[in-house]
């Protein structure tokens, strides 16, 4: 009898933690993660669940008497599709359309799902975005093509170096260094006009704008630890980009 009572509890905890993990890794805000986990738990009748969510880990307790479980978050990216998927699964759970086991299988599928757009499409998107940002920051149309080239190369380098060394800081540093070098060469060869506009446009896909905004939102929502650590992450990325560009200015 007791085992039967224990079993579903662990399954519910597993579903909650997996949902939280996917959402946090996909760049959802802290309050959204806590909210989703609490909603899933309460759909099984556990209305007293407690969670402590930080960008590097989640501690979750289903009931006041039960034991708390912990999950570690190593990588963080932005993946809106997964946020949407987890959201709809949690909604289906609360309306009782699917069972715990089904939810766990679905969540697991979402977890291992790859990026829906191929790497080449992503690089092309990054380069187009960079070119467009160059125009948006009052650049001339002459700078559009150089911006595209630098942005595409930079994003390419980011993916490659991140695959190579698994240190985000290093990958960002190398990518922005490459952007700096290429845009410097292009402008001195007379292909681009204003160096600043090209560089700003092409580092935009690397810039942690979303991180900064999420950090401030977390801080305002009262998640002080999450807000500060996200802010630190954003600062580190900005520092990497700035350093990479600065090295180019020092060399030339």
């Amino acid at each position, binding site marked *: 009898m007791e085992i039967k009572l224990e079993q579903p509890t662990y399954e519910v905890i597993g579903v909650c933690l997996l949902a939280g993990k996917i959402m946090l890794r996909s760049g959802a805000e802290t309050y959204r993660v806590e909210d989703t986990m609490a909603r899933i738990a309460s759909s099984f009748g556990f209305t007293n669940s407690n969670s402590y969510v930080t960008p590097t880990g989640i501690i979750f307790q289903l009931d006041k008497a039960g034991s708390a479980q912990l999950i570690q978050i190593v990588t963080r990216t*932005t993946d809106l599709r997964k946020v949407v998927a987890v959201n709809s699964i949690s909604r289906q759970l609360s309306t009782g359309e699917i069972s715990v086991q089904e939810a766990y299988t679905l969540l697991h599928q979402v977890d291992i799902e790859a990026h829906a757009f191929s790497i080449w499409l992503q690089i092309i998107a990054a380069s187009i975005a960079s070119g467009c940002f160059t125009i948006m920051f009052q650049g001339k149309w002459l700078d559009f093509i150089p911006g595209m080239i630098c942005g595409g190369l930079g994003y390419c380098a980011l993916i490659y170096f991140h695959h190579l060394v698994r240190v985000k800081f290093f990958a960002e540093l190398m990518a922005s260094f490459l952007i700096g070098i290429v845009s410097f060469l292009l402008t001195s060869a007379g292909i681009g006009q204003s160096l600043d506009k090209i560089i700003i446009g092409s580092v935009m896909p690397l810039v942690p*704008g979303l991180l900064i905004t999420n950090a401030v939102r977390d801080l305002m929502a009262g998640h002080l630890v999450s807000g500060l650590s996200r802010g630190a992450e954003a600062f580190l990325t900005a520092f990497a980009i700035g350093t990479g560009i*600065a090295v180019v200015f020092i060399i030339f």
Partner: protein
Amino acid sequence: MIAQLVTCFIATAAFAILFNAPKRSLIQCGLVGMISWMAYILLLEYDVDSILATLAATFLVGVISQTFAKYYKMPVIIFSVSGIIPLVPGGLAYNAMRRFVQNDYNEAVHFAVQAFMLSGSIALGLILSEVLNQTIRKKNPLP
């Protein structure tokens, strides 16, 4: 102006691809970004302070995102994330970092504080629109 809007639309949609937004939401994401950028540059042309302009544009992003979210039955975060992309002070953050490493600390701190204020106003705008949405929803509860 037209060129700005078109490039902004494309840039936001391209960013939505990088963020792995669902395919059927790409056009709407681009639209949100375009509207926010239009509001921003129009306000700047009427000599509104850039922080206030960002706040207003982000508030608009929040309102549109919530409408789209209700209409297309997708979470708000898809549209709001894409909508704030053009407003994010990436250029300022870059300028700040560049001045820092060139030992020009006065200018660097100036740019950094401005970038922080702008991102604060982006967050504030989003929160304001969320609060507004919740108040409206409480007044007329949906069936």
